[in-house]
């Protein structure tokens, strides 16, 4: 078995997930992690699966998805990655304000400069309002006040609001 990452992008319609996973299941593939969403109405899915063949045979098995030209599929082999939890602390970064180019790059640049790792990200545009939500792991020992202050400066330059709060880690 080999580990592959499959991406499926394109025009949304009912049945894409079902068809994709049927074709994969027919090859004997075992799905591990997957995520799917609509981005401005476009279907976007990424999944990681163990497959009996390799990336090429999997791509061949998925060819029927692309026949009408509305979906683009790519398959590539990926190495196993450690999936242990983060060593630092989890924060939620929220940014909202008037839409303009460069918001995501400016604020994520601040996070990267602090050694922070973004583990989940979503952004939304609703009319003029742009909202970014990012889950961020900051390394142990990070001066969070300093990061918040740098984020506030970046936000002020962009004319947007920013907040950085610890993620609720309550468990039962």
């Amino acid at each position, binding site marked *: 078995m080999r580990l592959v990452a499959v991406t499926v992008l394109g025009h949304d319609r009912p049945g894409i997930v079902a068809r994709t996973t049927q074709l994969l299941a027919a090859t004997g593939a075992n799905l591990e992690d997957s995520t799917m969403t609509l981005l401005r109405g476009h279907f976007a899915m990424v999944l990681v699966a163990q497959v009996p063949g390799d990336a090429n045979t999997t791509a061949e098995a998925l060819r029927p998805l692309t026949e009408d030209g509305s979906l683009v599929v790519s398959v590539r082999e990926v190495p196993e990655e450690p999936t242990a939890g983060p060593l630092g602390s989890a924060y939620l970064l*929220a940014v909202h304000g008037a839409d303009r180019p460069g918001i995501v790059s400016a604020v994520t640049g601040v996070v990267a400069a602090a050694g922070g790792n973004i583990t989940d990200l979503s952004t939304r545009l609703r009319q*003029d309002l742009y909202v970014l939500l990012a889950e961020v792991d900051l390394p142990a020992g990070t001066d969070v006040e300093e990061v918040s202050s740098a984020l506030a400066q970046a936000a002020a330059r962009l004319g947007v609001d920013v907040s950085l709060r610890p*993620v609720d880690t309550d468990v039962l």
Partner: protein
Amino acid sequence: MTLLPELPQGAVRPVLRAPAAGLSGRAREVDPLEPDVLALAADLLATQLGSPGCVGLAATQLGVPWRVFSLDVTGHPRTRTCHGPMVLANPVIESATRWEKGREGCLSVPDLTGDVKRATRVVVRGEVPGTGESVLVETDAFESRAFQHEIDHLDGLLFLDRVAGAHALHARQVYR
């Protein structure tokens, strides 16, 4: 204790929508006995009542940077304790306990809702516009959530600043 003073005739005013600048920044304390504050309180309640589904409105949402809001959770299915329609100036949360996640929307963010953790028990101190009476309101459940949402507005915060995770925002089709 009365949380609803005798109000002048209020006007329905336009509500700011994010990303309006007036929704950011901390609003300032007011003198609850100022006639302008009472007039604003009347406008807040009139605007809130004129907006279907709206259970509270903060002065900042009308573009006024004063610490005043209106609230009325009467009849909402998640309401337990209910103080009815009210207006309050200079509110301060004295205690907040028993945190729970719930879905929130906002007239100023009409296209989105979000999952936000709030205290389900709060004690809020404030002053009643017009009378200046200092009051201590103890409440729970939906009214408690609404208090925190409105007081956040007065600190320049939207529910967007409090959502629980990167995927805790949802599309919504109401308020149109």
